[in-house]
């Protein structure tokens, strides 16, 4: 259970140590990818709480979401369509949706435990 947290810390440390800088014009793609990744993570947590968690689904969702989000935003930049806005809206909505579901599940479980 602690391994993912350790992995998160290691990733953060690595990122700060490597001191990568994303150029200004690609910054939005990274942010889209990050948003997609976060959405996948919360989706995974929700699925875990709902006991429908599937590792393959999770893994493929993570990879494809981040790549497609960034890629679509990139293509949108080429076409002059602000696709990254759509991605932000979609992933943002889903993120908050997942968060709400997680909150409800945790809350109902806590109430169940209380009773």
């Amino acid at each position, binding site marked *: *259970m602690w*391994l*993912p*947290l*350790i*992995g*998160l*810390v*290691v*990733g*953060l*440390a*690595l*990122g*700060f140590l490597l*001191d*990568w*800088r*994303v150029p*200004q014009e690609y*910054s939005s793609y*990274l*942010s889209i*990818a*990050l948003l997609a*990744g*976060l959405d996948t*993570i919360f989706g*995974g947590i929700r699925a875990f709480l709902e006991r429908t968690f599937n*590792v393959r689904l*999770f*893994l493929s969702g*993570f990879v494809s979401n981040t790549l497609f989000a960034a890629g679509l935003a990139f293509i949108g930049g080429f076409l002059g369509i602000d696709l990254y806005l759509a991605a932000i809206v979609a992933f943002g909505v889903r993120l908050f949706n997942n968060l709400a579901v997680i909150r409800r599940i945790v809350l109902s479980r806590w109430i169940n435990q209380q009773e």
Partner: protein
Amino acid sequence: MLQKSRKITFILAIISAIIGLMLAVQVRSNLNPVPSESRTIAELRTALQKELEKHKNLLADISKYNQLYYQYETALSEDESLSVMKEELARNRKMAGMVAVEGNGIVLRIVDAPRHLQQAEDGHAAPLVTGSYVDDEDLRWLINILFANGAQAISVNGHRIVSTTAIRNVGDVIQIDTRTIQPPYELKVLGEPEVLLSALKLEGVEEYFHLANKQVLAEKRENLIIPANQEQRTIRYMKPVKEKGDS
């Protein structure tokens, strides 16, 4: 089953590591962001216009101050030429006898010769019906000798001799320009005293005046003051001739 869950946590760890990496990079990129431009093109255009105008104004300022600087420079050099002109004017005024001057020189007094000397030399007969007074020609001759031997300025009884000074007899008295002078005559001469004295001796001034029963007393003086010419002189009948190349 245990293996599977370990595998899952492992995968989750990798994924969270990737997420962490992305987070870190994103945070790093946004921590010291290049100050992003939030203004529109139109705003930027007006700002650019404003700055260009400011630039133009500053350039105008620069040229203005440069011009001012140039003016000051030329004024400075004109000032110099002004001082040169003033010097030249002062020199000319000195030469023309319009200012009092001071320097080394001699004082000549033409006085009556003592009686006994005259008696001793001439006996009783010679004196002195004819040459008993000094006339204008004597004075002109004397002054001419002095000028010829380097006198810079001469005054006779306080009247400055200048280039247009006339010395003439009017009745029994000598008149210099418009003023009469009375004996004893006193000439103040600026110049090299030795040269002037030896010139007097060489020209036989003493003997000449002796014939008129006069004695010339010469005396060296330092800081001899010669007054300025008092005459009112107006310039008439003459104009400077403009030469070519004269500005």
